[in-house]
């Protein structure tokens, strides 16, 4: 039962059509979730007793950071699927994740730096989470750079897929080594507003923003993936049906 679903999803015309239908739903739900999260986070939630109002940056910083890693995971999963089953749909999804993931990483870095300024007094202090995000940015750039350097789309797909898999295996190791390094040198850490110590009025909007960002990611991913798929399908008949329309 799951197999038939998997194979249908992997079939390009099906994916193209279903993705097209899902995009508006994801987009609207994303907007609603983010709106709710923003109202809850910016207006309704109380000020933090340690950081005052400045902590509200977490409502964009944390979702961006989470999504930057989720995008990489989805990219690696899609890449692995493409390698194993030689699926164009999977390769299209993997290729689409990279620019979106990079954007999330940049947002996380910039907002993290802006959050750090009032807390540490400088815009950057080698906090382990920010350093890990920076390395994640390089992983994304390496992936996109490799893709761009290879002319043949098929080889680019496979090579970057392998790189994504190598990267995803390395990510926990890199993360652990950066944490280890930071603990040695008593570096600054962005205060982790842990869930037990955060009242619901603070973390419910956060969850809403995270969900909103996830839905946003889904929407933009599907838009891009459809385009990527069109580039890969050479002479398939279904293209005529799709592209023949305006």
């Amino acid at each position, binding site marked *: 039962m799951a197999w038939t679903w998997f194979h249908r999803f992997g079939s390009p015309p099906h994916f193209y059509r279903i993705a097209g239908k899902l995009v508006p739903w994801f987009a609207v739900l994303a907007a609603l979730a983010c709106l709710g999260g923003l109202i809850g986070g910016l207006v309704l939630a109380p000020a933090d007793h340690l950081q005052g109002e400045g902590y509200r940056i977490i409502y964009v910083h944390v979702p961006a950071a989470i999504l930057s890693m989720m995008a990489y995971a989805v990219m690696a999963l899609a890449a692995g699927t493409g390698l194993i089953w030689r699926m164009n749909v999977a390769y299209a999804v993997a290729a689409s994740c990279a620019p979106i993931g990079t954007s999330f990483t940049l947002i996380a870095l910039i907002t993290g730096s802006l959050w750090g300024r009032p807390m540490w007094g400088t815009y950057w202090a080698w906090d382990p989470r920010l350093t890990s995000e920076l390395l994640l940015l390089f992983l994304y750039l390496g992936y996109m750079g490799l893709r761009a350097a290879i002319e043949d789309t098929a080889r680019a797909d496979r090579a970057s897929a392998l790189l994504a898999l190598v990267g995803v295996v390395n990510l926990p190791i890199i993360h652990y080594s950066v944490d280890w390094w930071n603990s040695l040198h008593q570096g600054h850490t962005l205060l982790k507003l842990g869930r037990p110590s955060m009242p619901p009025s603070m973390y419910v909007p956060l969850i809403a923003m995270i969900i909103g960002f996830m839905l946003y990611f889904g929407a933009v991913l599907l838009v891009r993936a459809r385009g990527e798929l069109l580039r890969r399908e*050479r002479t398939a008949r279904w293209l005529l049906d799709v592209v023949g329309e305006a």
Partner: protein
Amino acid sequence: MLEWLSMGGNARFVWPSYAITLLVLWLNIRWARQAARTSRAEAKRRLAMQPSDS
């Protein structure tokens, strides 16, 4: 209201954060749609150039 806008004195960090986030997210949407549109046009051109199959 003014107090809320000033974010307890941290306004110059909080609001740019949100602004940049919004900007990047919006650019992503535009970028994605542009890429999809270009791919469609390319696919159309490619199909037009091929000899029609049986």
